[in-house]
């Protein structure tokens, strides 16, 4: 399971696929502000998931260890 949902945290590991997007959106639709995503172990994210995170303005608890991915995601998920 590339995304593991905890109470207020979604933990991304390895590669998240396009199938995840629906579930992720559902999970985030309830109280998005209280929830955070854990991306440290993520190596690649399907853009469908990414735009869900962007649309819900999800807060990132930890950025990916993968520097390249981190740079990309920071451009999209750093909300002032």
């Amino acid at each position, binding site marked *: 399971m590339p995304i593991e949902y905890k109470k207020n945290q979604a933990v991304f590991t390895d590669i998240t696929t*396009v199938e995840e*997007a*629906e579930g*992720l*959106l559902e999970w*985030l*639709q309830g109280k*998005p502000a209280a929830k955070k995503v854990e991306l440290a172990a993520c190596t*690649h*994210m*399907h*853009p*469908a*998931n*990414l*735009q*869900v995170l*962007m*649309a*819900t303005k999800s807060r990132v608890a930890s950025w990916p260890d993968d520097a*390249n*991915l981190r*740079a*990309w995601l920071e*451009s*999209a998920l750093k909300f002032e």
Partner: protein
Amino acid sequence: MNPLLEQFLSEAREFLQGIGEKLMQLEDAPDDAELMVELFRLVHTLKGNSGLFEFPEMTRVLHAGEDLMDSVRKGRVAYSQALADQLLDAMDFVGLLCDEIDASGHIDASRAADSARLAKDLRALIVLTAEASAAEANLAAAEVPPKVEAATPSQLPLADLPEAVRLEAFRRARDGDAAHWISYKPVEECFFQGDDPFFTARQTPDILWGRIVPREPWPPLAEFDAYRCVLEFQTLTAAPRRELDEHYQYMPDQVDIVPVDPLFFVIPQGNPNGGPVYGDFIDDVLPHLDTGDLDALKQAAQTMLELSNPELWLSSALRWLLLLLDSIPENKMALRTLIESLRTLTPPDWSALQPSVAENSSAEQATHPGVPPQPESSPLSDEDAAAVKSIFAAQRQILSFDDKPSWLQGRLKAVACVLVNCCKVSGDPDAQDEIEKALQQSLEAGSSTPLLTWLEVREEVQAEIEAEATARDEAAGAGRDTIQANKEPPSAPAPEASTPAATAAAEEGPRFGRRAEDTSATASSKSLKVDQVKIDRLMNLIGEMVVSKNALPYLAQRAEDQFGVRELSREIKSQYAVINRIAEEMQDAIMQVRMMPVSFVFQRFPRLVRDISRKLGKEVQLVLEGEETEADKNIIESLADPLIHIVRNSLDHGLETPEVRREKGKPASGTLTIRAAQEGDQVLIEIIDDGKGIDPNIIKRKAYEKGVIDEATMERITDREAVNLVFAAGFSTAEVVSDLSGRGVGMDVVRTAVEKVNGTILLESETGKGTRIRISLPLSMAITKVMIVESDQQSFGVPMDHVVETVRVPCNAIRTIKHSKTTVLRGNIVPLKTLNDLLGLHAEPQANADNEMAVLVVRINGDAVGLIVDDFHETVDVIQKPLNGVLSGLTAYSGSALMGDGSVLMVLNVKEVV
């Protein structure tokens, strides 16, 4: 190449041919729905097939073509000349791609731009015409995202990039790398197609920076659709255009790749605090710039930078200033602009400087080939090329030193560095790897040889390319035809490949027709072009084989008769049967090779008929039938001229003008049918018109007047026979006038041509209804069946076509009427002639033991004539060879043939003899 691909290519060419033909036909009948469906089907199938392979360029164009045809088919878009032109253009392009795949196994990445442009043009046609209906317009717009005009660098959000990235990009550009801004907007439904645009963007080669932005404001979460892609991926890369095109080759319509002039990276940013203080600095340094004292300028800037907070706008500007001083010190305009910007604390407007940037940069390159704005796309001017060449020569000289100083390593490195930079500037960045490899080897070996070798090889290649380029320039006149070879010639990068798509489209789009023509000649197909001489040789060989095979039965006979070994005789016979079978099959196979469809001759008629009827002001509908009927090549070829003659005659004299036709109650447009069919071992060709026909009475009178027939004949002959008088020699040469004017002109030429290949021609006509000409030809002239007859102890062959029957006539049944011998056969009077007399042999014909004469009855022009010979023999299949040299004047013989026992058989030309 795998067989599937091979098959695809050969099929694709057929399809393209078919599409071309259908388009032509549609020009005549734009409303023909069936034709349209057929055309759509062709394009559709071809597109489907192309999808089996990794040729997105091809599929894209075909897909657009298919969509267009679909709209046309459904009546949403009207068929037009422009549309046909566009489609033909696209098909030429596809043909070109096919050739390229055939030659190299893949499509050059640079084709993607062309392909996208063509597809866009095709789709534009759909949109254009669909505008009428709003609903449809929406539909089309949904299908075709309106392509944003390629942004100019000044409009790019370069200021959003961190300064470090921009500094890096500027440095890379200074070192000869490219700088491209890519904006990648995947189509909304791309997730459903299994695409991962983020991955694609991440994999962009030589990426310097990238970010993801939403294309539209986010909707409320409840309405948000996770599977509709609304992201845009923006990247800055230092990769050359070619690599980018290759990377994004599947979605050229979704990416904008904009080359960025390095100056546009120069955007100072930061805290604008303490503005006024800088005035002094500006006043201080500008004189330095004016006097060209760059060192002082640098010194001042460095000092100022050390004193300032790095966060400040000033510091940022100073960092840029230092970098500019380092890299392009001669571009004073740029330096001045940057310094002046300190006054206002607004980023310098480089686009205002753009023209001068362009000017400067070209001047710069000669002295300082450091900052080519678009290294990929700047073909060197002659001057620069010469400079680069002399640099290469200098490096070569350095490498040629055979001393071994302690600084050899440093020297080698320096040389390699120079070479790499030169190569980058001249548009050959790929050389870098090779040079570095050579350098490595040189360093390890401690000698300059590997580098020197590289240099020499390169010079040779360069010389070749130059020679080619000049040759090509001469041939092509304009240098537009820069062929994109696999190994990109550094001196001639294709302009199409590197200019931004927008400008390429703005110019008159490149045409593919010419190139397609150039290559189509060499395009290989399944069929083989063989010199006819070779086939003829095969034919001769099989002929000899048949002959020598025929010697075997003689041998068997001898074995039995002379040596009494019946066993051996039987064995020889069974062997003979085997060889016979193989030889016959072989003969058949070779015959097949020589077979050609009559369409070879027929294909020229549509045009001919159209032109002539247009000229004569007649309306003619041409119907061609049985085009696939095959016959020997010689026969087909001999048919061409007579047929044209007949068709011309029919149009000229047979068919009436529309007015006359209407008066007579016929449809205004006449019909000319040319039909071919195979009947037994004959090819039957009919030319039928529904014109006014030929009046036999006029023919009879004319023929009588010209002395072709005598009065008695004129009374006697039937109408049917009369109309065939047009074929009579002498009839045609006369200037026949009046209403059947020249109907027979040249008709005897036609007859002669047909008879030359042992064919017959017959004309039927009904006054007022039309004329029908039937030509029947043998399938092949190669094998002739002849009957062997003996006269004066010599054997002669008589073609079976002429032989009616063989009879034994008792001597007392032969009567002499007016010095001519005749006899009565089944109530008909048959004139008799002795073969010996005809051939000038001074011998009396021999009667057999029963005192009967051997009479061979032959038919000549419909009349039966008896030839008195000594004896009959069997009939044989022979391959006739025409008489050559001095013998060719002997009209009495049509040719010679070799017999199984090695003897030569002379074949009589019965018509000439009698």
